[in-house]
């Protein structure tokens, strides 16, 4: 499944300072759909190059990270249970505090 992943607010530092990743996620045998739960684990293995604890906590993202699926907060689509579709854009952004 072709997806666009974007990292911002400093999270790009965990993946070699690249903000936009065009990826092709292949479903494992037995999987029929791609959920955010599965995608997060795939990202942890395939995209995050350092300090994974700065991206995840347990099976979700760490506190302070907003997740947007097609420009919508994933709280509105079922969080970890959100089902992804071809060409979806998933944004992970760390909240900023500076000024």
């Amino acid at each position: 499944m072709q997806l666009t992943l974007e990292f911002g607010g400093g999270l790009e530092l965990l993946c070699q300072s690249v903000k936009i990743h065009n990826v092709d996620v292949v479903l494992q045998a037995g999987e029929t759909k791609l959920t955010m739960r599965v995608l997060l684990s795939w990202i942890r293995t395939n995209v995050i190059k350092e300090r994974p604890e700065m991206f995840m906590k347990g099976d979700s993202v760490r506190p302070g990270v907003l997740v947007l699926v097609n420009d919508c907060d994933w709280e509105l689509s079922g969080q970890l249970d959100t089902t992804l579709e071809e060409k979806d854009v998933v944004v992970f952004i760390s909240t900023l505090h500076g000024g």
Partner: protein
Amino acid sequence: DACVRHGLSPEMIYRHSRHLLLPSFGVQGQANLSKSSILVVGAGGLGSPALLYLAACGVGRLGIVDHDIVELNNLHRQIIHTEAYIGQPKVTSAAAACRAINSTVQIVEHKEALRTSNALEIVNEYPLYDIVIDATDNLPSRYMISDCCVVSGKPLVSGAALGLEGQLTVYNHNGGPCYRCLFPTPPPTSACQRCSDSGVLGVVPGVIGCLQALEAIKIASVVGEPLSGRMLLFDALSARIRVVKIRARSLQCEICGENTSFTQQLFRDFDYENFTESPLSASPLKLNL
């Protein structure tokens, strides 16, 4: 006529003629603005443009809270301050700049850090403010200001900038979330960067601070759709801006939810530095080049 009926003086009519000409703003919008009072917390990178535009646009009362002193290394982004004010309180400097632009606005100087011990008094007692702008630079202040706005029932225009990115939203307004609805648990301290540690391109808080003034003006004048339930994400390097839809108020929110037991008294006793494991004041800059 309409201007007199709305309490606009001839000088105000002339000064704000370009606002009055706008069909979707007009006399009513300007009259609403002139009766509003706005508190800006932080006279730094975000507060500088926000304060200048709020003073210029003719709000009734403009409060400035900050305990800091103007330093030379602020001036690359904090355009409200000049070299002549280095060493003086930021509030003194910012207030002078606002008065120089518009002597008809009441400027209130709060030369102190916003803390749980004074926040409710500053926001709610005389002078009373309608809208709060979070232009601070640290995590415990962001939780504290949001909680203060929830227990005080005030809309909060929240901006942030770091490096080459900025973020903007309106909390606690029109059924939208509060800061805790979005971020019930603070991030690990290792994830918290500040301008003083990590740098910031000066004009990035400039853009966000202007947009904060705009959102406050929209709320105060009752014109347009404020950025509530939505968040603006700004990436300066690529010149990409997206406005995304965020969650509504959470019924389970400990502060603004249905079954909240949070009160003004609990606010006064809450330890935000302990909650976020980070200090309210910025640590000194260490520059290793």
